[in-house]
């Protein structure tokens, strides 16, 4: 394993060390839940002390030392509380307990092991997301609560329940067995994808706190890619995030209004992120096995590589959606393919494909179906039908900017009709 790039300073450094420190403490003391609390306290102590007193020569060892001390205090308190003989622990010198801070030990795969634990299928998705951000991402409960717009007490409760689920499900602190490795990695990638979405979806205007979630998801996915460089889907997900996030500045206007891909100012796109995403994708696609994240990244790359919207290679996008549809039984994919079909073969063909989606109960009444249909009717020149669809979609979406966008589409067509 190659060492991670030494770009980390200050808060970054703390966040990168967090999972390594937690791994070391869990190994020594076993109790994941208490160890996680102890590491949070150590991170807080570092955040207070290091700016004042300077970063210690061995920051990782320092954090492990402080967290181990907290663990010892915790164990002593526990023993006292249970009115057991506390002699065994209290008589142990502090040095004995915290003396071998595992400094020379290789970093092993603690970050990965922790991710597998925090994203265990036994946890609900919101729990897995919260625990991953805290235990692996090193974020505080307040920061996570702020990102999800819920009170801190609610997020604290969610995290504590997640820890309890881990305890009762008896997940051991080690890599999952080979037989279930692929499935468990899939769960990890899905949680990282959801964190990215949460941040990307809400990265509007001055709401920087939440767009940090997208950065955090990219950072964590980068860490997984660093440890599993040969895994195509990990690389694919990282590429997808980079290629999507590259458009962040262009996708909303000054008042937070949604700007669709076709009318975005492409000079605002982050060329560096696009170049990195494309390079990652090329490398992983050359290795053979292709997965759903790689295909989605490939579609994002085709969009990103078009200098103008009209230069978009829709035939290639259509082919990629075809592959994706065969791989994942997701009606949303078919919806997107309908748009590509319309761009290549005309709106009538796209509308025909939508009829086959109508029967899918998973999409029944979904605003996206009406939004796409409205778009295709507009392409076909049927303004009345398009307006009706846009209005229906606007009434059904649970997203404020999307509602405003769809309402504006209907109003614009209505004005053209008059």
């Amino acid at each position, binding site marked *: 394993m190659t060492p991670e790039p030494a770009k980390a300073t200050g808060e970054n450094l703390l966040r990168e060390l967090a999972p390594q420190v937690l791994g070391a403490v869990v190994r020594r003391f076993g109790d994941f839940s208490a160890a996680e609390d102890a590491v949070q306290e150590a991170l807080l102590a570092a955040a207070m002390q290091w700016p004042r007193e300077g970063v210690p020569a061995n920051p990782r060892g320092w954090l492990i030392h402080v967290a181990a001390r907290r663990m010892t205090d915790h164990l002593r308190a526990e023993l006292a509380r249970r009115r057991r003989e506390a002699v065994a622990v209290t008589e142990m010198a502090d040095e004995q307990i915290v003396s071998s801070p595992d400094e020379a030990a290789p970093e092993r795969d603690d970050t990965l092991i922790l991710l597998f634990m925090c994203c265990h299928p036994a946890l*609900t*998705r*919101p*729990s897995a997301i*919260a625990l991953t951000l805290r235990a692996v991402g090193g974020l505080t409960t307040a920061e996570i609560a702020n990102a*999800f*717009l*819920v*009170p801190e*007490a*609610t*997020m604290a*409760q*969610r*995290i504590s*329940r997640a820890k309890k689920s881990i305890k009762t499900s008896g997940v051991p602190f080690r890599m999952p067995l080979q037989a279930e490795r692929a499935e468990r990695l899939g769960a990890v990638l899905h949680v990282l994808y959801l964190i990215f*979405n949460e941040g*990307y*979806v*809400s990265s*509007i205007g001055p*709401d920087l706190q*939440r767009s940090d979630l997208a950065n955090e998801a990219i950072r964590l996915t980068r860490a997984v890619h660093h440890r599993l460089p040969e895994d195509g889907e990990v690389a694919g997900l990282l590429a*997808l995030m980079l290629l*999507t996030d590259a458009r962040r500045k262009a*996708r*909303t206007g000054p008042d*937070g209004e*949604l700007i*669709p*891909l076709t009318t975005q100012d492409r000079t605002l796109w982050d060329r560096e992120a696009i170049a990195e995403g494309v390079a990652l994708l090329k490398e992983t696609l050359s290795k053979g096995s292709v997965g759903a994240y790689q295909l*989605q990244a490939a579609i*994002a790359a085709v969009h990103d590589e078009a200098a103008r919207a009209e230069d978009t290679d829709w035939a290639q996008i259509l082919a990629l959606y075809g592959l994706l549809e065969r791989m994942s039984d997701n009606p949303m994919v078919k919806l997107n393919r309908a748009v590509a079909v319309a761009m290549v073969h005309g709106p009538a063909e796209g509308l025909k494909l939508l009829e086959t989606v109508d029967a899918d109960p998973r999409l029944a009444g979904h605003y996206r179906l009406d939004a796409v249909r409205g778009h295709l009717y507009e392409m076909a020149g049927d303004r009345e039908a398009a307006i009706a669809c846009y209005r229906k979609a606007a009434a059904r*979406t*649970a*997203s*404020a*900017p*999307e*509602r405003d966008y769809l309402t504006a589409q209907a109003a614009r067509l209505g004005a053209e009709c008059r």
Partner: protein
Amino acid sequence: MKYMLMMTAPRTMWTEYFSWPVEDLKAQVAFMHRFNDELKASGELVSTHGLSGPEETRVVRAGKNGAPEVTDGPFPETKEFLAGFWIIDCESKERAYAIAARASTAPGKGGVPSNMPIEVREVLSKAPVDL
């Protein structure tokens, strides 16, 4: 996903409420406490509040130069009033319905479940992804 659960009640409820037997009132208060504690413990409660009655309700409109024009309530044409609400953050629509159903079992007069209507509205979120 965040949802607002709205508990509505007929205007007459606010006056009837005061004629309930003490143990029925106590049972309802205890139920609401327990219910809120459950939502806190499950990490799903964003906020909850009960509202004062229709007699204290005022309607405000901007008058001349934006000055507040206050009208007294209650309003004869309105039958149902918002009595209180919860904002919850849960995994699915189904879960929101389950929580709303639980709220609806709050005991009414005589200690039997009131089965009062709970209006469930999804809170609009920020923009979706254009993946």
